């Protein structure tokens, strides 16, 4: 029901309004404005208190300026976080214990190891579940139940048990990531491996194809788009697992450790910059999976689910 007249006469505003980037821009801009306003609002109490105690005259302009440049603000202003990020990402040597790049590296290595293990486990479980009815019936409910156990609850136990057999450092953290991220992969892969319809399966039957042939020639290719959809979810969760795992290990390295240290010493800007770094990492990881997906699916000429 588009009206042709409107389109042809549409001005630049209309086009911007109907486009995609402009609305996103507006939303982001409003969030930033809200953030700055929030920083003033949340930090003002303490500042006004200070002014009154030291009996200084204060103006709104002064208040805003101070609110955006406190050392330990309740809510830091975005530019403070950017300054901190600049300091800890670019200025510091990446081998330094205070470089965020270093901490990110620590977190990302357990994320990736955990992700690889989780993907392997997830795919194997899915293959088993699709092929063995017994596994489907007996294991599936427990796979779901396993995810209702909060990961941080068993994390210390995993660390204790693995520590006893001499595994410390990266491995326990990776295992915790794996525990979180195998689940979406299993679910997605089961769906994908079951996605061929009766007709396609019957066709294979007419060729009297073996179970292995049906798997490699039909089920596996059909499941690839589903696999990537769940890999995208899984890698983000794997990062959560790696960060969360750093908390009870008492780790001194990694983004989770930065969060913990920041919270001990009330270093809000440090917490926020670790948080921003983690978010950027998460986006990069998901983006990397998306790119891989495009490459793989592009070659087979298919669309993502």
């Amino acid at each position, binding site marked *: *029901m*588009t*009206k*042709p007249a409107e*389109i042809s006469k549409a001005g630049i505003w209309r086009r911007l309004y109907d486009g995609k980037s402009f609305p996103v821009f507006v939303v982001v801009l409003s969030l930033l404005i809200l953030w700055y306003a929030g920083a003033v609002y949340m930090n003002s109490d303490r500042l006004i208190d200070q002014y009154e105690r030291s009996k200084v005259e204060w103006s709104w302009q002064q208040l805003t300026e101070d609110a955006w440049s406190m050392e330990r603000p309740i809510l830091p202003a975005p530019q403070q976080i950017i300054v901190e990020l600049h300091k800890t990402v670019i200025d510091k040597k990446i081998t330094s214990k205070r470089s965020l790049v270093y901490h990110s590296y620590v977190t990302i290595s357990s994320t990736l190891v955990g992700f690889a293990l989780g993907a392997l486990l997830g795919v194997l479980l899915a293959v088993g579940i699709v092929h063995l009815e017994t596994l489907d019936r007996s294991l599936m409910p427990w796979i779901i139940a396993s995810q209702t156990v909060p990961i941080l609850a068993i994390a210390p136990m995993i660390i204790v048990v693995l520590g006893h057999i001499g595994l410390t450092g990266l491995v326990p953290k990776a295992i915790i990531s794996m525990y979180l991220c195998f689940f979406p992969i299993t679910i997605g892969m089961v769906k994908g491996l079951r996605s061929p319809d009766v007709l396609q399966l019957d066709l294979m039957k007419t060729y009297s194809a073996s179970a292995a042939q049906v798997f490699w020639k039909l089920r596996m290719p059909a499941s690839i788009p589903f696999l990537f959809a769940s890999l995208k979810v899984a890698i983000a969760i794997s990062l959560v697992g790696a960060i969360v795992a750093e908390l009870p290990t008492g780790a001194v390295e990694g983004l989770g450790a930065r969060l913990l240290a920041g919270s001990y010493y009330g270093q809000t800007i440090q917490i926020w910059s670790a948080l921003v770094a983690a978010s950027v990492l998460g986006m990069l990881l998901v983006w990397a999976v998306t790119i891989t997906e495009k490459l793989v699916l592009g070659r087979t000429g298919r669309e993502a689910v």
Partner: protein
Amino acid sequence: MSDVDLKPVIEIEKLNLVFQTADTPVHALSDIDLTVNAGDFVSFIGPSGCGKTTLMRVIADLEKPTGGHISVNGMTPEEARQKRAYGYVFQAPALYPWRTVEKNIMLPLEIMGLSREEQKARAARNLAMVNLEGFEKKFPWQLSGGMQQRVSIARALSVEPDLLLMDEPFGALDEITRDHLNEQLLKLWDTTKKTVIFVTHSIPEAVFLSSKIVVMSPRPGKVIDIIESNLPRDRTLDIRETPEFLEISHRVREGLRSGHSYDD
């Protein structure tokens, strides 16, 4: 046909509709002129893409024309829609899977705010009309395709409109079911004296059902011929072997051919 109430229900003059698509504009309807009288059974026939659905949707105010004039019951289509002047049967049954058959039929009545008893009574009456008594508590997905489409007809009838718009309602059904439903529809039309507009691309179906056949052709969608049928109102399937029937079919076929509608 009774000459007493040749009251026009739909009047269309010089109607145009151009769809603005990404690359080129599509001239879906071009200078359509058409009058539908009360009690008519009008079929739109033509190859796919000739604008049958679009014309029907304009009548139903689901699409706005870009030019020309149209009135439904002497009102604009929008006013007619607000007054719930018509029942629309889509190509697919479009039943809601979370509602039982009965509740599906009651849907428009709930929206209109009728009383509970009235809703129930109308649902029962119209289910009987399409021979589906006893299926009230079933869910749509428990019925066959033909039964689902009958439910959707009962749903359109439950509004008790004087005007029934049907867009290829039997298109997805097998021929045996289709014949059967055609006969039932005809009986319904004969007894209730409703005005029916019916889209099809089957020549026998159009000739069998209609008192007036509108032959259309594509690119741009326009009306080529309007054929008045003088077959009796109470016809049975046997009529398809009579010379009169074959003659009208022939004229429809000629019309379609002259519209060059099959050259691609």
